[in-house]
């Protein structure tokens, strides 16, 4: 077991880092904000922390600086973007990621150009990685409770309804965007600390695909989905080694399958399973004779009439 752990410690570390990145994606997707900016902030966090480490800034301070800095930058970025929806926001944030890659390639000594930076003098223990990831999980899980949890659920499904329920939609979207940016940046810091290296290829298209896959396949409904997604993306290629270089294709197919057949992701599937088992147990314990709880008055599901009180009125 111990030997197995040592052989796979990199995977454990990657799981923790990816879980934070997955949260960054999940937070926006759950709110109906279709953004890829997480990966751009991952790059920013990775490079900024590398430079800070060169100047002897401590790991914890570096994390705080990047977390807060990314949140502020993310908030500022969200101000002009808040009116964009769906695909348009996706395209703009994708462009943001691409611009940052160009910057990384041409950043001189700050970024090390196409080769990137390596031998960054900082190390973080696996335990510390997990502690940071756990704090992030705690933060995000608090967004799923009580009134803020409900308001975010509405935001995704029906924005106008959210407005009529007193939710300041744009303010909420700005906040979510900032939090996602902070988490993305933090994932980048962890990545740099753990692997002592970062290059432009480290936050490219592959990472966008991985991030989306984690959030969507795991299930965007909850932080648990992000954890499940990170586990799948990190360990799946390890178990099914034959996938190898076809990883991107497999991820793409997985995402399509989930979106088409199980929008709740693996998490949604598990929750349904648990509910079904619970219902089965309840049925058993009550002798199996129980009729499903009946509504007081079941109306035969009348389709809404066209509400035409009369024919021939055209207004």
């Amino acid at each position, binding site marked *: 077991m111990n030997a197995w752990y040592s052989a796979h410690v990199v995977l454990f570390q990657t799981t923790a880092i990816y879980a934070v990145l997955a949260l960054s994606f999940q937070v926006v997707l759950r709110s109906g904000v279709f953004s890829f900016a997480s990966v751009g902030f991952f790059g920013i966090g990775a490079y900024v922390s590398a430079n800070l480490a060169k100047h002897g800034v401590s790991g914890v301070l570096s994390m705080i600086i990047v977390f807060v800095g990314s949140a502020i930058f993310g908030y500022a970025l969200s101000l002009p973007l808040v009116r964009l929806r769906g695909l348009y926001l996706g395209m703009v944030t994708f462009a943001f990621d691409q611009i940052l890659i160009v910057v990384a390639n041409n950043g001189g000594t700050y970024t090390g150009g196409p080769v990137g930076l390596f031998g960054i003098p900082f190390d973080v223990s696996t335990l510390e990685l997990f502690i940071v990831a756990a704090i992030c999980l705690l933060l995000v899980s*608090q967004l799923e409770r009580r*009134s803020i949890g409900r308001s975010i659920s509405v935001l995704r499904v029906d924005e106008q309804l959210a407005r*009529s329920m007193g939710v300041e939609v744009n303010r909420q979207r700005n906040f979510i965007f900032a939090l996602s940016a902070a988490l993305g940046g933090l994932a980048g810091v962890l990545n740099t600390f753990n692997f002592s290296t970062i290059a432009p290829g480290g936050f490219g298209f592959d990472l966008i695909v991985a991030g989306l896959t984690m959030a969507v396949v795991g299930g965007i409904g909850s932080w648990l989905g992000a954890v499940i997604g990170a586990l799948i993306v990190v360990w799946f290629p390890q178990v099914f080694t034959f996938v190898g270089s076809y990883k991107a294709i497999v991820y793409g197919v997985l995402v399509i399958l989930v979106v088409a057949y199980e929008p709740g992701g693996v998490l949604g599937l598990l929750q349904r399973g648990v509910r079904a088992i619970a219902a089965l147990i309840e049925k058993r314990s009550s002798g199996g004779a129980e009729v499903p709880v009946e509504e*007081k*008055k079941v109306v035969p*599901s*009348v389709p809404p009439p066209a509400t035409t009180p009369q024919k021939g009125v055209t207004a």
Partner: protein
Amino acid sequence: MSVLLEVADVNVHFGGVRAVDGIDFDLETGCLYGLVGPNGSGKSTLLGALSRMTNLTSGRLVFAGEEYQTYSPAKTARMGIGRTFQAVRLIPGLSVLENVMLGGDARTAGVGIFANWLLPWRTRNCERSCREGAMEAIERLELTGLEKRTAGMLPYGTQRRVEIARALAAKPDLLLFDEPTAGMNREERDEVGEVMRSLRGQGLTQVLVEHDMQMITEVCDYVFVMNFGKVIAQGDPEAVVADPLVQEAYLGKRGSKNATA
């Protein structure tokens, strides 16, 4: 009686379409108003304007002495103007209780995102009163026992009642109903009508958009009739329904038949 809502020369134009065309009226506290008119006459657009979800082309809105035609829809909701929609708009994946509690959140959203997120002790009381308000509304609409059901799985008429409960849970001072009983059977309509009467008894001001003339005459204190974005008649429900002008514009030849439907 005091005036709760003042609507002064409100216009909503979509390009050349004058969906709401110079509407002018006052609503008094505690009254139940009917708003009728043929399809496309601008009723929904007017409710949209009053709840600030549709921008005014011009005009003035005053609620409890506060001019609010420039407010955001969210602020308008928090100020105490609630509404339901013509189409069912529940969050299908959430439970009935959660859907109804959404209504109650309207008034607690003011605590701010940060407190709502990370300071659970600041929201504990809000959450409790929100839950109590939601349970009360659920009871009122005879949805007790369905709290944990997934909203999207319920029959259509039941979903409509969940919507009304959600609007009530916000504890509004003015409640705008856009065809709340569309698709319901007679018995359910009567039940919703009774809920409205009892809310009126508690002093809630309501506006009811409804095609069912029987319900309008039974439930409302006062009726406005719209056509082509204008109020063409108003007054006592019985008298308005009998008005030949209204019959011609709205009820047409089917008038008497519709009134007894």
